């Protein structure tokens, strides 16, 4: 039977951004993502209609994946943001909210789309040039001599994921652990090429978060009744990736001819025991296999004082190879001396009901293990998969560029004020280059700044007001139950915690007009330490991705949907 099915013709939409349906969808998506932004975000529950697992989250990567795209424009934006998140792990919501605001503002100001695209592109280059400058007002140099700013950076990432439900001391503890683990993976004696190590995370459910810990070396699962006799250090060990269960599937394709009456099972077992004998002769004390080991071989080795660990799993293979600096032994040849590795010592650790064997490295190592504890499974999963991995990634990004950006919306308001000021000043030079009129240029610039500010506003979810101060252009929030006079109280701080309130400071509500000004640098002798920091590399990339994606969407004139 032929399975040829005729292809049905595609569905076409002309000028998609003019249709109210598409605009409504984009607005809905923006509202959804906006409300999941920041440390006080509203959580979202994702569940499908066939009764799958319910996921509670506010993370962009999970949320965006859950949105089934009804329109190609949405999936275009979704794809861009997810790609960004997969590379930089952070600022996904910032990028998507900013991108959607840019599209919405472009529609609102009613200019020709190609003018908008040109001006957006020009303003983006102004932004990135400003951020790369040494004296940029919203950039902080990271000081690797102290772990304080690194911990602040880690803490900002952890605090922006409210799904984990961490208390103040708990999040402080986790951020300290994250920085500790990160520092353990950076090699000390650097050859020409730096290769960062690995952190293996082991989740343990039902314990307090404060019991989480970081260990140098590796912790592996082990049977409970393990007895560590007197072991002299260092221990020689061997590692197999092939199954030692005695089945033939690993041997590859081909035909095996067997004489009649030969018991293949016992033949194979003999071979395995032969291997065991050789290993014993070579004084191996630790025998590890990725897959299953034949029980007879296990028993034989244990009786002879060897620690046997089976079913290691593929994910632990690489960290173990790095830790012990040994190649994987194979069954194809007899094991050469070079195939053995070494560990300094082993000890047994107990975590609740789980027993782990701790392999201490023989020399300096960049492999470490993080034990993560949390009260229930959902929170633990979010903590492990999203928070810790992301924090590690963000911390690693600082090695490439040792700076961070002020968090709490202050970078956004600062950039908006800067762009507003710059665009007013260079309007006569820029508008002919971009082949648009001066009014068009200023209108488009205003749309760009408003989009930046709307990202800052979306940090607030409790009906509070967002303000900008008119000297340093930092972001301030005013809770709904207090008056503006409260801001003048000297204890009030801006979003990132660098600027302190004082009597003669002036504020303006965001999204209202204010006279443009150049943000003044902070010139105090002992500046306050920022309490919220964002990853520089991730945020700059998010900014560029957001503007480029918005430009792309604005440029779409026609949509062809393949419905096959």
């Amino acid at each position, binding site marked *: 039977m*032929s399975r*040829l*099915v*005729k*292809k*049905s*013709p*595609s*569905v*076409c939409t*002309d*000028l*998609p951004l003019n249709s109210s349906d598409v605009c409504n969808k984009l607005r809905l998506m923006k509202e959804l993502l906006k409300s999941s932004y920041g440390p006080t975000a509203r959580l979202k529950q994702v569940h499908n209609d066939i009764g799958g697992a319910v996921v509670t989250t506010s993370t962009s990567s999970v949320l965006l994946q859950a949105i089934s795209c009804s329109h*190609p*424009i949405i*999936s*275009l934006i979704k*794809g*861009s943001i*997810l*790609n*960004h*998140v997969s*590379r930089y792990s952070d600022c996904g919501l910032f990028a998507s909210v900013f991108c959607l605001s840019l599209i919405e503002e472009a529609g609102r100001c009613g200019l020709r789309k*190609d003018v908008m*695209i*040109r001006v957006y*592109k020009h303003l983006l280059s102004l932004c990135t040039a400003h951020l790369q400058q040494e004296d940029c007002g919203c950039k902080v140099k990271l000081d690797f001599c102290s772990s304080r700013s690194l911990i602040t950076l880690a803490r900002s990432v952890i605090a922006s994921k409210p799904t984990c439900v961490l208390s103040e001391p708990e999040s402080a503890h986790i951020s300290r652990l994250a920085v500790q683990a990160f520092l353990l993976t950076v090699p000390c004696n650097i*050859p020409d*090429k730096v*290769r960062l190590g690995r952190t293996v995370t082991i989740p343990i459910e039902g314990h307090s978060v404060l019991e989480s810990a970081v260990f140098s070396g590796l912790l592996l699962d082990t049977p409970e009744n393990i007895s560590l006799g007197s072991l002299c250090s260092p221990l020689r060990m061997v590692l197999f990736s092939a199954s030692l269960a005695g089945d033939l599937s*690993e041997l*590859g*394709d*081909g*035909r095996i001819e067997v004489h009649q009456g030969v018991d293949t099972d016992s033949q194979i077992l003999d071979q395995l025991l032969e291997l065991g004998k050789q290993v014993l002769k070579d004084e191996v004390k630790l025998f590890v296999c990725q897959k299953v080991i034949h029980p007879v071989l296990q028993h034989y080795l244990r009786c002879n004082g060897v620690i046997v660990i089976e079913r290691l799993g593929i994910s632990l293979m690489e960290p173990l*190879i790095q830790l012990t600096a040994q*190649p*994987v032994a*194979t069954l*194809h*040849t007899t094991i*050469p001396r070079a*195939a053995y590795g070494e560990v300094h010592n082993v000890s047994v650790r107990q975590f609740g009901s789980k027993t782990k064997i701790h392999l201490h490295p023989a020399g300096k190592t960049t492999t470490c293990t993080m034990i993560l504890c949390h009260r229930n499974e959902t929170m633990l999963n979010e903590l492990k998969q999203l928070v810790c991995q992301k924090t590690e990634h963000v911390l690693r990004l600082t090695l490439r560029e040792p700076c961070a950006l002020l968090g709490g919306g202050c970078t956004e308001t600062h950039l908006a004020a800067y762009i507003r000021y710059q665009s007013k000043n260079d309007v006569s030079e820029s508008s002919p280059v971009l082949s648009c009129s001066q009014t068009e240029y200023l209108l488009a610039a205003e749309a760009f700044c408003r989009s930046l500010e709307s990202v800052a506003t979306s940090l607030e979810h409790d009906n509070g007001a967002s303000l900008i101060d008119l000297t340093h252009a930092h972001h301030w929030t005013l809770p709904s139950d207090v008056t503006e006079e409260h801001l003048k109280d000297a204890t009030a701080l801006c979003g990132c915690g660098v600027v302190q309130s004082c009597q003669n400071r002036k504020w303006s509500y965001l999204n209202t007009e204010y006279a443009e000004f150049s943000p003044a640098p902070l010139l105090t002798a002992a500046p306050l330490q920022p309490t919220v920091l964002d990853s520089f590399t991730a945020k700059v*990339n998010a900014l*560029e*991705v957001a503007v*480029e*994606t918005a*430009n*792309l969407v604005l*440029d*779409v*004139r*026609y*949509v*062809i*949907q*393949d419905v*096959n």
Partner: protein
Amino acid sequence: MVPLEQLHLNHVLQTVSALESVILRSFGPEGGQVLFTRDTGQVMLSRSGKRILTALHLDHPLARMVVRCVWKHSTITGDGSKTFVLLLASLLRIIHATASKETHMFQSHNSTKAAEAATARHLADKLLEFALTELDKFIVLNVLPHGFCVSLENFTAKTQHNLSFQTLLVSFFHTRLGYAYCDFFRNLFCELLSHWKVKDDQPSFSIQLLNNSFPALHTQVSGVPVSCSRLIEGQVIHRDFATPCPQVRKQPLKAAVFNGYLGIVHFSSWTERSVESIIATLQSFGVSVLLCALKQSSAVLAAATQAGMCLVECVSEEEISLFTYVHLDFHDCEERLKVKPCSLVICAPSEGQADQHACAFQDALRMLLTALEPMHKTQTALKKTIPSEECTSLHTDNISNEAACRVHLHQKCVIETGCVISAGGTFEFLLHHALHQYGHSCSVSVNTSAVSQLLAKALLSVPRQIYSHNLKHFLQAQTRVMALIPRQPNALSNMSLKLLDLGFESVSCKYQLVLAVLQCLTNLLRMNMLLRTHTILHTKSHNSLNAHSESSEDEDED
């Protein structure tokens, strides 16, 4: 009973007009992107007419035929697919108007419809014949004097020739990727070309090389801004190591390439030893990297691991051939020192965009190849496409082949290589003017005059679409070009310098485009009937024939 469907001129016109309306959204400097989804759900973006038309999945056989013609044309020249549809629609519209007026030419036909079709067919044949015999003369006499020559010698230096080369690239990338990235990709393109430049060879040689090995030469990265796209030294093999790669290694590296299996596939102790001996031999040569086209057995992997060699499996054919080309073909000659192999990393926030940029890059290579090829070569390329298109027509004819041969004879010195002219409709304005004058001169027969007038009129539709948002600009542009005509300048005059900011397009691409459109037109009009055959398996789907997309809804009213 096979359903018979009479094909009328207005059916053809409707079909092509529907295609035109899709194309127009991304045509010209004001045009935008077309977003399309694949059946896999993948989102793609394009401004290339070829990709847009193929994404439509059209039902109507006529529409599919037009799309195939466009596809063929732009696969060779890499450009001009949107103008193709535009010109075709305009020609059909004029022929339709003329034919409905002049049905008296074929009074013998029993219906007006048939008479109309016969007139149209006749006109199309005449047009093609005229174009094949006379068009090159018009271009040489009236268009070329206003053009500039592009050469690949020292194209990075800032002389007049190179300025035109760079402008040609900028305008190409502008039509494909929009304003935002055209300068950026122009620079990247020039850089790539200068790295791969082989001295003492024809300039088109390196472009041909790049075009052939483009799949192996570029890497797409998504999730990163476009401005991160760059060249990197050496070649990227798009596979990971199958055996662990030691960090420290001695320089220089020696690599071996394998097309087949290492040793024998079947497992036995004998092959085990033979694999070991092969690895040992390679080791004695100092080889430390193995590139294999096929997946290797675990015995081979184990042996390579023990020997500390890096092995890469499943390397694609293109990558292997580029690798061997760079390392073996250049090996002994001095050329090797001058060529600096590098590959291109194309970055974009989304996969669709990265893919679009890669396609634009490859099409730019194709376009340059067409622009730089001497004309008599491209003639043969055109002739090759004729027979396959003829299968679709019901008549066979000898006119085009004969004519092509005749053109071929006096072709030699016709158009010098790499001639470009200002974009923005200059080519069409000039050719329109020349044809118009020719049609009005008394020395030509009535028939030829009518045909040249027809073509002249159709050509104007292209600039009219370019300036569609503003009629004033259209008139201004026309006046500006007309002012050039009496002077016949060969160097850049003040006037033509003004035209520079419009960009450049290749004359030979344009010439081929006009010819290809006329070929397609003749084929379209030669058909008079549609036979919808269907096998039993397809009876169900036949019912869905009437389900059409919005764009092609009006094509099929019977």
